[in-house]
């Protein structure tokens, strides 16, 4: 059986986080009633003219710079012609030969070798308007088509990778890192369910047959609605192509590129009818829109607005906050909001490691249980920082802190009030000392055991101390007992 390599390139469409559409002032909000967010421009009414959205240009340049792309000094708009009912003008305004971003790369974790990275080349990223949505049932007659044009004119950035990906796991890492980067920079929400991130994959196999390289025909896989679906579709498709090659011997020279859809429920790809057979899009420069000049000063200005990338954040969490690579990864991969939350908790508490572990365990668990986001989390970062600061200084032990944490999730109040409500009071060291002295006086055996080398014997007294005074910090009690015994 010949060895083969899977060759994958991804085309990712992300919806830019603009206030309005690419060429008009209509809102791009998701979920509005059909055809409620439209105007003559995005409907392509006769006589209406597009006007470029500067915010979309800025966001595209921002994404391009973060993806290590060149931003050419001039970009222009082209019309891509095809007939489709959800494309009201009969053409899509896109970018053909002068995309706004070109030649970039994205570093991703190498799934085959922990700690290593792979550099995935990017051919280009270009701006284009989205089409509407049509639902139709062509089998049951002409009256069953419904068209919602709300999405028409929504700004998309299409990011096209080189065919540098070698496995579905790499594709998944690429998508994860891309999504993380774009959400970090607030370029896009990247919500796959809402269609603001859509993935098409080009895949084929390079087989090694008796020392000769043979490539299978390229297939474009569409309709994948989650990263998991992308992974599965690519795995399925690689196997299907191999089987197909074994059966037919068909190579890239024998067959043109075809399009297949992904059926998530049946977990297989299926041959898809093309919008147009051998499409000739008849691209030409849109005469209604002038070419856009992007002066270096503008590009520099955008560069200045770029917050740190996830990769830079991971480095910083390790060097500045002393987190392990693993912890830094977990925090950063949760997204910009969690990262910001962490930083605030770490600063206020003065204890980044404790902040990291509490966020990874208690906070993330709570978010999951409550199915909410960090933005809606009931404990503000400063409050959690305050709480963890008290743990660090020994005012609270971990168990009591968890009680406070639970209380703060239910009640919008500060740490002091929570402690009061839970009957937690700060205990001064004199009080602890007299309590410990009394316990030692009552339990001479413990003193003997400790002097005999069994330090853990104090454990029994810690429980008793807690019974007498629930606010006593066990760590502090332990240290006080040992100090008294050892003089």
């Amino acid at each position: 059986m010949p060895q083969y390599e899977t060759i994958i390139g991804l085309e990712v469409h992300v919806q830019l986080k603009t206030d309005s559409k690419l060429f008009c002032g209509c809102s791009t909000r998701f979920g509005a009633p059909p055809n409620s967010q439209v105007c003559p421009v995005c409907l392509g009414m006769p006589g209406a003219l597009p006007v470029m959205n500067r915010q979309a240009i800025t966001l595209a340049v921002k994404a391009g710079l973060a993806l290590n792309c060149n931003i050419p000094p001039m970009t222009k708009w082209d019309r891509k012609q095809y007939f489709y009912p959800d494309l009201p003008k009969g053409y899509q305004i896109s970018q053909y030969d002068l995309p706004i971003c070109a030649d970039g790369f994205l570093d991703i974790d190498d799934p085959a070798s922990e700690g290593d990275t792979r550099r995935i080349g990017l051919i280009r990223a270009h701006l284009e308007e989205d089409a509407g949505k049509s639902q139709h049932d062509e089998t049951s007659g002409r009256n069953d088509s419904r068209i919602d044009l709300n999405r028409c004119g929504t700004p998309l950035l299409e990011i096209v990778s080189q065919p540098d990906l070698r496995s579905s796991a790499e594709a998944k890492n690429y998508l994860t890192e891309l999504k993380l980067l774009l959400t970090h920079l607030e370029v896009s929400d990247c919500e796959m369910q809402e269609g603001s991130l859509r993935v098409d994959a080009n895949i084929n196999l390079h087989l090694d047959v008796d020392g000769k390289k043979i490539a299978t025909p390229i297939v474009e896989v569409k309709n994948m609605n989650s990263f998991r679906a992308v992974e599965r579709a690519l795995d399925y498709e690689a196997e299907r192509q191999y089987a197909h090659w074994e059966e037919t011997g068909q190579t890239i020279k024998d067959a043109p590129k075809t399009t297949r859809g992904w059926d998530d429920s049946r977990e297989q790809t299926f041959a898809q009818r093309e919008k147009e057979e051998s499409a000739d899009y008849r691209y030409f420069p849109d005469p209604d829109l002038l070419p856009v000049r992007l002066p270096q000063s503008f590009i520099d200005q955008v560069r200045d607005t770029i917050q740190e990338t996830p990769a830079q954040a991971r480095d910083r969490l390790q060097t500045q906050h002393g987190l392990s690579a693993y912890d830094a990864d977990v925090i950063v991969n949760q997204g910009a909001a969690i990262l910001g939350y962490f930083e605030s908790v770490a600063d206020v508490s003065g204890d980044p490691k404790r902040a990291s572990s509490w966020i990874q365990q208690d906070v993330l668990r709570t978010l999951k249980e409550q199915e909410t986001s960090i933005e809606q989390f009931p404990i503000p970062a400063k409050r959690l920082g305050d709480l963890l600061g008290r743990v660090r200084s020994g005012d609270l032990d971990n168990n009591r802190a968890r009680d406070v944490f639970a209380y703060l999730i239910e009640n919008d109040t500060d740490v002091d009030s929570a402690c009061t409500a839970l009957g937690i009071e700060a205990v001064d060291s004199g009080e602890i000392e007299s309590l410990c002295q009394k316990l030692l006086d009552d339990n001479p055996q413990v003193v003997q055991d400790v002097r005999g080398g069994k330090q853990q014997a104090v454990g029994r007294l810690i429980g008793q101390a807690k019974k007498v005074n629930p606010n006593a910090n066990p760590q502090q009690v332990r240290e006080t007992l040992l100090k008294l015994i050892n003089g």
Partner: protein
Amino acid sequence: MLDSVSAILNALASGDASARQITEQSLEAIAQTDPKINAVTHVAAETALATADDVDRRRAAGQSLGALAGVPIAIKDLICTTDMPTTCASRMLRDFVPPYDATVIRKLRDADAVLIGKTNMDEFAMGASNETSVYGPTRNPWNHDRIPGGSSGGSAATIAAGQVPASLGSDTGGSIRQPASHCGITGLKPTYGRVSRYGLVAFASSLDQIGPMAWSAEDVALLLETIAGYEPRDSTSLDTPVPEYSKAIQSSDLRGIKIGVLRDGLEQDGLDESVQKSVTEAMQVFTDLGAEIVDVQLPHSQYWVPTYYVIAPCEASSNLSRYDGAHYGHRSDADIDPADGPLLSMYRHSRQEGFGSEVKRRIMIGTYALSTGYYDAYYNKALKVRRLIRGDYDAAFQQADLLLGPTAPTSAFALGDKLDDPIQMYLCDLYTVGANLAGIPAISIPAGLDDSGLPIGVQLQAPALEESRLLFAAAAFQSQTQFHQLRPGKP
């Protein structure tokens, strides 16, 4: 005489006439003459009278009024209006009432003009004779067997017939100037971007421009002043202030002005002797006014028409893609063709039924020229030649302030004469398309009558944004000549 804009404004200001009287006169003239000439596709009598009454009321109350208050104006039927259909003289848009006003319409309304109705045209502005309209041809008021010129033929004829003192047309390759020439009126194609195209149904976006038509340069200046200006909704609109054109034309001293003449252009095949004579006589008038006539060259002028007839159909094929029966306009109810399925059937039948043959011809040419394998040979090459043509003009305007020449090779020809010969029809634009390809302003002014008493126009061209210079020279010419005061049917 109430047939000029300025005369009407004077009569209204002095109280010699009310806006209602003027509007009623206009409506009456339409009722009388239009059955013969078919220049108007929609008459908005009610809203026009309401506007007129409003103007009268506000004038009586001493309130301020716009620059064109009470002046009836007709609009070419490819400029969007919310209270009138906008059909482009096509079956495709026969019932289409846009949900918005074009910028020029908004500006006319703000100027308190009385929008009297929409005018006939070649379908989607494609044609040079006004014969491709779904409403049937418009006839030339000077001779009903002749065409009025296209595609703004209705806008020219409605003035020549005395229905309105002014109108708006659009000019993609000569569609304002050529009918102005044939109908004995003055028509201006402004600099590309000087007047917003927002709301102008696109034929060829990089060439289209809305412009004013009236009897005299003075009236045209008044209209241009109203409709010109920057418009953020049109990316190709020019962000430069609008000069007071009506003031710029008040001198008739042309000393120091150099007028360039293209000698080769005057010896072209197909150029009628009477047109040649009118141009020569116009040169004399300008010389008498103090201008200096100089020879200029536009070396690539022989490529104007071929370049135009690649670029315009390419853009048209794209602009007209939106008429597919899906969202508005004509949708066929023909049976589904089993081979095509319901969707393709709808597209095919709707476009087959909705468009006339000239529109289809240009869509086919454009689709072909843009398709893979032909793009470089046609469209891309045409863009390169277009740059050379612009360069020619830049060089010519180093030597001359204005260019003078024919507007059309002949006077108005007979109906049906060129309808079956597209190439002959396309050659009607021989002298006008250069200005569209270069984006510069150009004006056609009446300059004579031929042996059969049909008007002849001459064309002046100026560098970009020099409309003032054009209007100034045209007004000076009209101060010395009577051609713009000739009327059909009058000696």
